[in-house]
């Protein structure tokens, strides 16, 4: 099957021509840079962002208790939290978003994205791919009909330098897969908890008990043992040549102290680790920054549990302060390191939540249910103008009313910022050309 036409219309031979070679020799970080730049030489509009960190708030975060409070609405809409001022006059946040409110000048807030997919499976798919599911899907569904943003970015900006180009931590998001782009662009899932003292990124570092020396003797041994004849004539298309190239890349990654540092979160100072918050989410945000520094183009921090049908206030009181701190710190830290211009940070879930607080049968505490007519999305970096608030919902937060935007607009904006043409044509498994995003119009205020 090795030379079969791939689903995306490329043959393996094309891939080899596009990708490999020329990497070894120069310093690791240097070679990353060289590749990153050459990637942007083509007809694609140059994007400012080279990497994207997607904070995926699975379950559908409430817009009321986060970025779009309705302090003037009646109690059954407004909820238990009050509103606080942000650094942008006239714009209020919910009371627990203290640090993000203070730093709104560093990022933008979109309050007017809406769509029509009110269940988790479909909403996940729409926001994660920019394409609504082709057929109706159930609420608990994990579906994939179109490549996710992460997979597309991995394909477009991946650098074939040994580093996986799409990380997802601690799990893959529901529609975060590559679909027809193929397994090569599936997320590299790092399930372990970086807040754990024993943490390491799987596979990119040696197994725990294996010493460098023994690894060295193993690879020496392999070079003596792997005697399968390589067919050097390029026209023969021997797939073993690519295998060798990848082994070499992996080996370089594992043995390069510089590369290994990228994955070693324990090298961060205790102050920095504390600053991000000593919990799994905070440390994943911190690890994301390290991965960005190493040149990984797309990282999803999967953050589940935002489906607050009940006890919304109790659980958010506990959760939001730490969350607010971790996300604000990530943006701040990227800015301090001069990385914010080249790093896009996005936080969102699949939809917003119902304006009116409801109490489900069997529950004693109030919650909010699924609501796709309005949601808030945070976007920072990659040239996003800080302090911009795009669009608005109505007085009670029912619906986006001003500057109504679609998931397509959102996803196009992400691609645009990364220098990927959202109007690009991909080929489905049936060979049918389809646009990366059906409506490729980005949100101009954020460009």
């Amino acid at each position, binding site marked *: *099957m*090795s*030379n*079969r*036409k*791939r*689903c995306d219309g490329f043959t393996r031979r094309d891939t080899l021509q596009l990708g490999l070679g020329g990497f070894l020799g120069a310093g690791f970080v240097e070679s990353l840079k060289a590749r990153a730049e050459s990637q942007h030489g083509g007809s694609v509009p140059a994007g400012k962002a080279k990497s994207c960190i997607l904070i995926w708030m699975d379950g559908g975060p409430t817009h009321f208790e986060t970025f779009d409070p309705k302090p003037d609405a009646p109690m059954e809409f407004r909820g238990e939290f009050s509103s606080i001022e942000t650094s942008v006059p006239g714009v209020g946040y919910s009371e627990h978003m203290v640090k993000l409110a203070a730093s709104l000048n560093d990022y933008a807030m979109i309050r007017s994205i809406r769509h029509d997919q009110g*269940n988790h499976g479909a909403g996940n798919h729409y926001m994660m791919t920019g394409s609504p599911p*082709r*057929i109706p899907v*159930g609420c*608990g*569904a*994990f*579906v*994939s*009909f179109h490549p996710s943003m992460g997979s597309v970015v991995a394909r477009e900006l991946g650098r*074939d330098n040994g580093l*996986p180009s799409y990380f997802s931590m601690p799990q893959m998001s*529901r*529609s975060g897969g590559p*679909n*027809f782009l193929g*397994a*090569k662009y*599936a997320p590299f*899932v790092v399930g372990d908890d970086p807040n754990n003292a024993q943490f390491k990124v*799987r*596979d*990119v*570092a*040696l*197994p725990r*008990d294996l010493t460098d020396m*023994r690894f060295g003797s*193993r*690879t020496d*041994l*392999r070079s*003596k*043992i*792997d*005697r*399968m004849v390589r*067919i050097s*004539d390029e026209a*023969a298309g021997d*797939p*073993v040549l*690519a*295998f060798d190239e*990848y*082994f070499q890349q*992996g*080996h370089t*990654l*594992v043995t390069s102290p510089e590369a290994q540092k990228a994955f070693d979160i324990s090298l961060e100072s205790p102050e920095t680790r504390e600053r991000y918050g000593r919990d799994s989410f905070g440390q994943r945000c911190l690890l994301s920054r390290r991965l960005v520094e190493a040149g990984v183009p797309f990282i999803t921090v999967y953050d589940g549990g935002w489906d607050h049908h009940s006890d919304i206030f109790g659980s958010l009181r506990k959760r939001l302060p730490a969350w607010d701190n971790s996300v604000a710190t990530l943006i701040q830290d990227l800015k301090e390191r001069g990385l914010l211009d080249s790093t896009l940070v996005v936080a969102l879930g699949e939809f917003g939540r119902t304006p009116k607080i409801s109490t489900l049968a069997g529950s004693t505490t109030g919650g909010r249910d699924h609501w796709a007519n309005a949601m808030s999305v945070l976007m920072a970096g990659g040239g996003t103008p800080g302090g911009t608030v795009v669009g608005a919902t109505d007085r009670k937060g029912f619906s986006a009313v001003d500057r109504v935007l679609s998931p397509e607009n959102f996803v196009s904006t992400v691609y645009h910022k990364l220098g990927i043409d959202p109007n690009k044509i991909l080929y489905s*498994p*049936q060979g*049918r050309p389809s646009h990366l995003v059906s409506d490729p119009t980005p949100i101009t205020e954020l460009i």
Partner: protein
Amino acid sequence: MSRRSARFLIAFALLAFSLSPACKLRAEEPAIVDFENDLQPIFTRFGCNSGPCHGKARGQGGFQLSLLGFDGQQDYDAIAKEGRGRRVFPGAPENSLLIAKPAGKTPHGGGKRLDVDSPEYQTLLNWVRQGMPRKAPSAATLQSITVSPPSLILAASQTQALTVTAKYSDGAERDVTRLTAFQSNEAPIAAVNENGLVTAGQITGDAAIMARFMGQIAVCDVMIPRPEVIPAEVYAQLPRNNFIDELVWQKLQRLNITPSPVCDDHTFLRRATTDISGRIPTLEEVNAFLADTSADKRSKLIDRLLEEPEFADHWANKWADLLRPNPYHVGIKATFNYDHWIRQSFHDRKPWDQFVRELLTARGGTFRDGSVVMFRDRRQPEELTTLVSQLFIGVRLDCAKCHHHPFEVWGQDDFYSFAAYFSKIGRKGTGISAPISGSEEFVFTGTSGSVTHPVTGATMTPRPLFGEAPPVVEGQDQRESLAAWITSPNNHLFAQVMSNRVWADLLARGFVEPVDDLRATNPPTNGPLLKALGEHFRDSGFSITELIRVVANSHVYQLSSLPNETNAADTRNYSRHYRHRLRAEVLLDAVSLVTGVPQEFDAMPPDSSAKQLWTHRSDSLFLDTFGRPDPNQDPPCERMSDSTVVQSLHLMNSEKLYRDIGSDNGTAKSLADSEKSAEEISAELYARVFGRKPTVEETALVTELLAAEGAVRRQVIEDLMWAMVNSAEFVFQD
């Protein structure tokens, strides 16, 4: 009368001024321009109505044309009537947007496409001057096109111009080369430019050049043989185990390339065992096979493998990949039952026509009858149409759902007539619902339901794509008629697409690629052999085991992968074996066999193999890494067998593999604990991992390592095992 034929029953301009150098012109007055015959080809040729431009579903800049000009009326209206009349100005024809934009006189997102001096520009201008006639007075219909020459043999770098001639219903012919789109299916072998000039590359092989003009297609076959002719007796002396060999040698002879020698016994053992049974040979099998001196041991091995239960699991695993529903969509119990039905069918060695008939006409409940789950998963006739036609007859109808396939003969009439077979499927029970569609659903022969043509609104009568299907009898399930047509011995596509698939599974490359895309514009690399193989499959009663048997017994299947001086560049004609990486499940089972530590999977009994997994929801980092598709992906897709760096990293550093190699219950430990000599350990490791005997030097290396000062026997064996598992010889099939 159908809409399509009506569209073509349009007066034809006898003297199409600009397009027909062969015709005589009346110089003073240009002939009436015909929209269909004269204008549409221009829009197609210059890309105006292509997918990325005005041909896409939402048009471009508010101006929408039908994709590649398949709907003349729509396009005529878009140009002559819509756009508030700005697109055409009969008063000042040059100022028409239709003319000014492509000529670059008015800003145009698509840039300048036409020269003012070009005949096409003049045609557009004449048409507007003439008042935009919908049809010319005495038009004929385009009947066919021919490309000349129809086949070519070129030397490397040689060029040849193609000529395309259109034939019309009134007998007229015209040279439409200028307005024809050309495409090569193998550009490195023979490229073609927009004017139809073919240029041979430097690689020996063959290519098909497709010429497309207004929905008509013609193909020119190009062959680039090696320049040195090889004497006929070389081919006459080659072995012929069965008809396959003869037909491959014939093709190689025309290309002047010779096949590689036959492969070693150990290579054949590993090749046949991984291909047929999806596992690597065991230590005992390796030793027994290599010691066997009988002349027919390869044939006997093939027969034995075809009897194994692993054979069924391996091939069921491949088909489950293609038929697999999203468990969140159909429910987990239905997923299990479906997998079980597929798997059991392979265990029963069910003839392929019976498998497909049972699947297509399935009736029953999803909790009892796994075969009905396809109809739970695919609920719309349209979805069933694309899946069924692609998988079982290799016809891709996806495009024809919305528009005429640009490289195909199928249109919407064909699509919706086919879909009509699925219009009366009865369903009862709990449909697809949140959160996990957990309940049972029944599928039965319904009495109501219809499929309508999305454009004409007509209710469609079931009709096969070609040939005759048994008529639908009142009260009978329409699907019976469809299944009879699909699986008929007269339906060559049914036999050929499966033959092509199985051939690709064993030879690493199909005659046709993608394997389920059979059409005139994607010709097979060896048409006579595909035909013969299809007939053999049909005559065997659609026996998959017989199909595999005949392929595996051919001399061609048993060739070495190493090239000789003539065939390194051959990647499509089977003059040598093409290597490929082992499939995810095969590789993981191989790892388990080597380490001696079985895998543990969720939802599976202990000691299950990866091939037996009935859902991709059972977690496995290893399988995901090596290309097992996302369980939730739709549509299912052919897997890629590429290597990736993530795979290299996983074999290199996976904690799990590290622990399994070093396990107290594993092979390495038990070898270390044994009294075996260095020589015996070397022999056992090489047989287990690579399926062969070590060479003298290899045994010397093992001996040296074990005897080294301070060497820890168990560590040395573990290191050897790690090094071998990370070698190409383990990961690839040679």
